[in-house]
């Protein structure tokens, strides 16, 4: 089960990276681009911390400490740049 999670997580990470790059090179409105790529980096961060770093089985406080980083930092960066 754990190994399946690792394979699945790697596929999600690769796909989101490819989609983000395509979106950045497309002509979609800047607000939509900002929203989609910010969400994409949050999901990628969640996959790395939960699956690769194995924090989904770690004490809850540690897990949320790292998850708050991967959610808040992209959110703060997007807010500074776009709003």
């Amino acid at each position, binding site marked *: 089960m*754990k*190994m399946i999670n*690792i394979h699945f*997580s*790697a596929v999600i*990470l*690769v796909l989101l*990276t*490819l989609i*983000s*790059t395509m*979106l*950045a*090179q497309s002509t979609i409105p800047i607000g939509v681009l*900002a929203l989609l*790529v*910010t969400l*994409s*980096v949050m999901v*990628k*961060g969640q996959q*790395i*911390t939960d*699956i*690769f*770093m*194995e*924090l989904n*089985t*770690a*004490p*809850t406080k*540690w897990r949320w*400490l790292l998850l708050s*980083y*991967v959610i808040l*930092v*992209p959110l*703060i*960066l*997007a807010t*500074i*740049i776009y709003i």
Partner: protein
Amino acid sequence: MPSLVVSNLAVSDVIEQSLHEQKLPGDLAMWFFILMELTVFAIFFIGFAITQRLQPEMFIDGRATLSADVGLFCTLALIISSYFVARSVEAVKRGNNLVAKRQLVFALLTASIYIVLKITEYSALVEHGFDISTNTFYTLYFFITGFHFMHVLLGMIILAFMAKRAKQNAYQPNDCSGYEAGATYWHMVDLVWVIVFFLIYIIH
């Protein structure tokens, strides 16, 4: 008879507790080090974003000299490398040091792609007359990516050391916290790059 029942309950409690035990992988010291590193990078990222907000034209011109493809392939290289490292941790936990070593060799090979791409990108920028003193964009670009590059090099040294120890069959399924700590450091390097890619190559 009652004492036997109490004893059986105690044993089942211990088994139940161990099944649901929430364990932090690796060493606690490594996690504090990772939190410190992530904080330093967050400060750099926020500095980059604020400067972009203040000087948007400079950042648009600067980004135009970077290749999104280089950023993309660097990201893919580090993600795939992290994938092999995660697999190697699973192999060690199953007591298979040789498989773990092989996965680490694959991780090092894919990480080498990142190294080659970054050196190529730095060389191309310098050839075109852009260096750390050109303007604020390049100062921040070279500083953030260069700082991350040094972390990748350190991570590769750690992975190579882990591979050498795995070859010597030094890790056991119930005694691999050092191995987990090294792997966690490598995932931190990957995590930071995901945000670097978003901030420098994707956002515009």
